[in-house]
């Protein structure tokens, strides 16, 4: 399943600057990986441009938005002033309509909604029944980690595509859509 999404840009720690700048700024010192209390952050392997930069795979371990990593970054690859988890902007979750129990009608499952750290803000229940991701989603990936049928795909905010059967992203309540997210959805 995850093999299909291997070509997507990696999910970066909270507060990461734009991917192109990130691979240049990051000095691969490992301070963010070291401070991460959940073992979420790992080094990217290989010999490419992004060799040994920090990333995470929500299916393995999601980001619990403890926000400990941005302040320890010495290089400016992560915005050291970031402390608000709602502004982590790592990516966006997409619920796959043809897998999610609530859409296929198999059973009522509220796992993603219950476990979302921004419950009722990043994941809302449309009609009180079907979960939908809003633009408040930070891409922490907890929903993808807990989903019993792997119906959630988390893509980096730099991904240029959305899964075909994804439930459309709703605007977050009470906020205008952040401009780069809005642009991503328009593509």
């Amino acid at each position, binding site marked *: 399943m995850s093999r299909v999404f291997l070509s997507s840009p990696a999910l970066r720690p909270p507060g990461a600057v734009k991917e192109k700048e990130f691979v*240049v700024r990051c*000095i691969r*010192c490992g301070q963010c990986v070291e*401070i991460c209390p959940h073992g979420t952050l*790992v*080094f990217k392997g290989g010999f490419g441009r992004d*060799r040994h930069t920090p990333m995470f795979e929500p299916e393995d371990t999601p980001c619990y938005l403890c926000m400990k990593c941005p302040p320890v970054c010495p*290089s400016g690859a992560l915005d*050291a002033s970031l402390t608000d988890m709602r502004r982590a902007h790592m990516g966006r979750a997409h619920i796959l309509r043809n897998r999610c129990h609530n859409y296929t009608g198999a059973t009522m499952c509220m796992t993603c909604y219950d476990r979302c750290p921004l419950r009722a803000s990043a994941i809302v229940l449309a009609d009180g029944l079907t979960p939908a991701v809003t633009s408040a989603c930070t891409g922490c990936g907890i929903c993808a980690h807990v989903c019993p049928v792997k119906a959630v795909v988390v893509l980096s905010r730099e991904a240029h595509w959305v899964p075909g059967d994804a439930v459309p992203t709703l605007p977050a309540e009470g906020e205008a859509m952040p401009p780069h997210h809005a642009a991503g959805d328009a593509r």
Partner: protein
Amino acid sequence: MNIRLSLLRCFSRWGVIALFCALPWLNAAGMHGISGSLFALDIFGWPFGDPAALLQALAGGAMPSLRLLWGVGSSLLLAFFLGRVFCGWLCPYGLFSEAVVALSRKTARRGSVAGRTELVSRAVVLALGFGLVLCGYPALTALSFPGTLSLAPLMAALDGPGRLLFDLLVLPGTVLLLEFLFGERLWCRFCCPQGLLLGAAAWLGARCGRLGQFWSLPVRWQAGRCSCKAEQPCGDVCTLRVQPRRKGGPDPLRCSRCGDCIQTCADKGKALSWMR
């Protein structure tokens, strides 16, 4: 000399390795007093940084953060005042590289001493790395062996002896093998970008220090006390092949302040000593 310098140095460098092996565990236990790697190290709030990593960020067109500048400044100041002590006393690659020398010394393979060639070669490697960074590939951190080795325990803690660790160690491992086969300390002498940058700071420090005479830790050679004529045990013992019998001491760009020559001389005429 009461305490053997080589013993002290052994403790110091194995201590560095032990520290980095312990760091993932210390961090897991919530002790963050010392954190990072030899790319960027925080010691109780005081940062140190790899000058080549800073160069890489600059070459990439990114304005580095104040903390990275401060960290690199600390590293360069250390070299300015004490010489390349990092290379001789702390660098984990240096430890392995000297272990290779100890292994290959038995086969006694010693070529000619090539001072200027070493510096030119190191500058070429730095320039090539810089060029690759300009082309978009982060070569300078990939070529940073001390930083790379200091990350190894963390990577091992993350995914065991997996592919990541192999990625990490394949380059330093290959170079160590080459050193064993073809020559002593090849990386430190001919390639290491950190060594060149720290050496430049040390050279500057030695120049200013000689004017002021109140800092720096150069090796001093007192010709009058030197009792060895044709033979030179001090030069032979130096794995970096620096000539310590020189007016003003060994070349600060190449000397790692390891003190091997001083220790050797202590048994002879005591012509070599730390300058105070």
